[in-house]
């Protein structure tokens, strides 16, 4: 399921990935890359130039500190991402008092692990059970719990997911290679205000001997959005 689509990175120079992307017009549309069959990134240069000009003029006007931009980018590339949420989930799996706290007061429980702030000011944790599967979407924009999951993936912000999650969640799950029993209730949470939701997936069977860190490595980003399941004990690398 995770290998269904190979890397679609379209950074300058990654031409193989871009050739793949050009065969997927609906993805190209949402990543800003128009279908292209030439090796250079001339179709992206207009936005590239515009963003550079924006940075230059906003800096000249004193509206931004360019050093702040670098720190912002580094923060979301290296410090704040879904491994944070994975640690929250793993703790909930091994510590029933923490799990209870998380479900009653997610803000406080998550903050106790050091994760707070922008786009996660009002957290709610949703526990998957045998009879209920939770899935989170923002049909109106891209609301997402940044402190625990980092920046949202492209699909989360794109029209197919935002349109279908609330009406055909099983179809969406199928796109991720996930099938749930017919008897499972699907509970979809549309994040229309400033409350941010974190799904606590079910602990995979056969993981009793694993440490908390090993358990965290089973928790995928998608399993905390509700479009995936954690890795099984056998899938652990």
């Amino acid at each position, binding site marked *: 399921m*995770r290998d269904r689509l190979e890397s679609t990175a379209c950074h300058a120079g990654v031409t193989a990935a871009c050739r793949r992307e050009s065969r997927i017009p609906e993805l190209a549309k949402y990543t800003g890359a128009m279908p292209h069959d030439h090796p250079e990134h001339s179709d992206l240069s207009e936005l590239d130039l515009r963003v550079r000009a924006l940075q230059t003029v906003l800096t000249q006007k004193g509206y931004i500190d360019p050093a702040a931009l670098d720190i912002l980018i580094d923060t979301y590339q290296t410090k704040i991402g879904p491994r944070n949420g994975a640690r929250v989930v793993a703790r909930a799996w091994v510590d029933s008092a923490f799990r209870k706290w998380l479900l009653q007061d997610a803000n406080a429980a998550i903050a106790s692990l050091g994760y707070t702030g922008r786009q996660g000011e*009002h957290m709610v944790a949703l526990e998957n059970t045998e009879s209920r599967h939770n899935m989170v979407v923002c049909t109106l924009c891209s609301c997402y719990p940044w402190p625990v999951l980092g920046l949202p993936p492209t699909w989360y912000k794109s029209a197919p997911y935002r*349109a279908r999650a609330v009406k055909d*969640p099983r179809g969406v799950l199928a796109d991720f290679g996930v099938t749930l029993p017919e008897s499972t209730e699907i509970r979809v*949470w549309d994040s229309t205000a400033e409350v941010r939701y974190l799904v606590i997936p079910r602990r995979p069977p056969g993981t009793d001997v694993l440490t908390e860190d090993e358990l965290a490595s089973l928790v995928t980003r998608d399993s905390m959005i509700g479009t995936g399941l954690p890795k099984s004990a056998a899938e652990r690398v």
Partner: protein
Amino acid sequence: MTYHSNADLGGQSGHGRVIPEPEGELFHASWEPKALALTVAMGATGAWNIDMSRSARETLPNYESLSYYALWIEGLQKLLAERGLLREAELAAGRMLDPPGALPRVLKATEVAPALAKGAPTERTPTTVARFAVGDSVRTRLGNVSHHTRLPRYASGKTGRIERIHGVHVFADTHAQGLGEQPQWLYTVAFEGRELWGNESPAGLTVSIDAWEPYLEPAR
């Protein structure tokens, strides 16, 4: 004045399948990290609030054809232009042509980590009693409004049940229009799939939205 959001996609058909993506992939073009950082840094100046920026983006006429970070850049330019903070000609020239406008503050490098860790909580101290209790049956407002709102069309004029009460929060509708925070009680309202989609609804589907009190009326 008519107001139309191009971002209200819930329930629409014809957008195709969802394309999963590996966990480490955050950006797909070299300009995207900068687009993110510029948007966050300018948002931190206080020249506008987050609801105004959502409103600026969702009303872009070419919303559907733009990638997400391209939307952010167009939205940012629009917010700057509306406030006289930046002209298109300055971007074309690649340099400042007009003197800078006044901003409430500027996000310095040393302030980034504390600002991100603090965030911008929207919960406020209640001054009224919540009109609804968990379990109450409510009906959402029907029809269009002439401003930014966070009641999706698919959940408009529908009957659901109050599932959670989140306290009193800044009201996006007024905040986006520059009419102040006007905090309101915020609820999670859950709808049966059939109420939203009729016979098309899959079995065993429940969908919720987070709705401010003015969106809701008691259901009979």
